[in-house]
């Protein structure tokens, strides 16, 4: 589904990604771990098409097609979803209005009519129940005054509404309490299928107890320096990153 080859990217002449390779197939769950500042969010943003970063080398393919020239909204229309590490506030725009606009704009891009209000409502009801979100919450301004955990749960609600092909969850677990973590993880699991894929960026094994990864990658200094199965995450949790850094020298 997603194939990244030798990706190099920089911002203001500062190199952040230094030849990164990653392949994600449909039906897989990949976890990306790594120390602060390693470039995890940068990778997520570049896949999503953030134009601030300059891609100096390498290719990103989605379903076998190069997406590097696509605008962020076009990538979204092609099924890429990013759950932000720090979701932004949009005052005065309700969660409902926002997600309605997002769905209808995506449909418009595909030449479809707006989703009938009845279907929209049904879907909102279904997905908010899945994630145990109070309906009143949906009429609030997007992310305005939301607690850290509420913001993350709202990201996953949007993911559930948009049903992406490739979901990238950037530290979705941080800020979630123990119950919320379980609810959100269950939500993600329910949305998983053989046709879509998930990349989970996290610092903690905790989340991976619920969302079990097929692969775990260590991103360090702008590269993936080690990959393994779910047990690698346990090892990292126990030992930290020093041993990997040492392996590199």
């Amino acid at each position, binding site marked *: 589904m997603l194939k990244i080859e030798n990706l190099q990217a920089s911002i203001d002449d500062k190199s952040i990604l230094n030849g990164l390779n990653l392949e994600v197939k449909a039906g897989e769950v990949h976890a990306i771990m790594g120390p602060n500042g390693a470039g995890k969010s940068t990778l997520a943003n570049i896949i999503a098409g*953030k*134009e*601030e970063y300059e891609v100096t080398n390498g290719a990103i393919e989605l379903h076998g097609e190069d997406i590097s020239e696509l*605008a962020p*909204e076009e990538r*979204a229309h092609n099924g890429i979803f990013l759950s932000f590490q720090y979701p932004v506030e949009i005052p*005065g725009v309700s969660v409902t209005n926002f997600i309605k606009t*997002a769905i209808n*704009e995506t449909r418009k891009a595909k030449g479809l009519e707006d989703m009938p209000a009845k279907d929209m409502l049904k879907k909102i009801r279904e997905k908010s129940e899945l994630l145990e979100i109070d309906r009143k919450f949906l009429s609030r301004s997007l992310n305005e005054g939301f607690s850290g955990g509420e913001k993350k749960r709202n990201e996953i609600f949007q993911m559930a509404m948009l049903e992406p092909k490739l979901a990238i969850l950037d530290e979705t677990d941080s800020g979630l309490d123990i119950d919320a973590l379980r609810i959100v993880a269950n939500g993600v699991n329910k949305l998983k299928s053989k046709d879509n894929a998930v990349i989970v960026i996290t610092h903690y094994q905790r989340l991976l107890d619920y969302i079990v990864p097929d692969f775990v990658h260590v991103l360090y200094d702008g590269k993936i320096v080690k990959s393994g199965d779910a047990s690698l995450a346990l090892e990292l949790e126990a030992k930290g990153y020093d041993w990997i850094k040492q392996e590199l020298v």
Partner: protein
Amino acid sequence: MKYTEDDLEKELETQEYKYGFYTDIESETFAKGLNEEVVIAISKKKNEPQWMTDWRLEAFRVWEKMEEPEWANVRYEKPKFQDIAYYSAPKEKPKLNSLDEVDPELLDTFKRLGISLDEQKKLANVAVDIVMDSVSVATTFKKTLGEKGIIFMPISEAIQEHPALVKKYLGSVVPTTDNFYAALNSAVFSDGSFCYIPKGVRCPMELSTYFRINEGGTGQFERTLVVADKGSFVSYLEGCTAPSRDENQLHAAVVELIALDDAEIKYSTVQNWYPGNKEGKGGVYNFVTKRGICENNAKISWTQVETGSAVTWKYPSCILKGNNSVGEFYSIAVTNNHQQADTGTKMIHLGKNTKSTIISKGISAGHSQNSYRGLVQINSRAENARNFSQCDSLLMGNACGAHTFPYIEVKNKSAQIEHEATTSKIGEEQLFYCNQRGIDTEKAIALIVNGFSKEVLNKLPMEFAVEAQKLLEISLEGSVG
């Protein structure tokens, strides 16, 4: 493919005026220039009684001695007042009972503006009194209103048919001597609307007037007078769009509202005069005086969505004369390219327990300048007066400006006054977030701006709110892609 603020700015300025056309309706226009003869001629043309002619002449003599105000935070080339034709009317002034009788070309104009009267009649239950080039050409719904004793007609007709009412209230809130533009308007106003709601009557529909400027080089001086008698209620809508034009067009309207005891007037405006091209050439000068007076327990709400005009100078105000009276001002002002707006309100608290609310949302893009100027005045006898003001500014790009000039004068210690102000910017993070969800930048800006303006949009009558949202989108939209 970096998307910078400069790109955003470019997108915003490339939008051309959507309603840039004008119709070829045969018009009769006075020669340019203004003197006593012209004032008398206007009055004669309208068959006015002597008291009206005298009233105009008095205004003219005052105006001649006045200076154009300079204090507003706007810069423009002063209109040459002797270069303006002060009267322009379609040659035939047909009296029409139905839309079928309206000049087809005119109907076509309305269609191009996206305002189908038929549709409005059906959907919105709106009575429309169209003012085109200073003369009303169609009045609808007169009958329904007539049954309730409501008078809604061109002011020129009201002067003929209800002289006592007009004489009593005209100039009672905005005296002829009030300011330069009000004096000019009083001398030369050619038409406008008059509305009277009898005691205890709730007007069953929104009253609406669409103002248009259509004749090259004619200033337009509309006069609106709304009187809500004791215990009555009326919601009045005013909307305008103007055809594209190269020379500046002057618009100096006067609106007077009178809310007698226990009455309520809701006055909503969507203003979309031609703003000039993206270099700042052309465009309408909008110098308006709008003021209302509240008697005991009365309430006046001004709601405005201002997206047009090259220069706007406008302060809808409330004189809270009666005890327990309430004044409200809800405003959205959008400026783009080289537009300049200096707008706000005055809340004059005279009575006891008077209350006022001011919510102002300024949105600036391009090289525009957007100023809020508001006065809250609590007079010595206004016990327990309260005011809440909130002024929010939203900036797009780095070349525009937002300014807030709140003036507060308190002469009574029991007053409670709150003022809040915020300035924010549409950030690239917000745009990227929207983009990531499949919403393109143009739509994202519309979404963010609508969210920012929501508190005010919510105050508009439903059918107007939809139009207003569209207008916000149009006035900020670029040509993405």
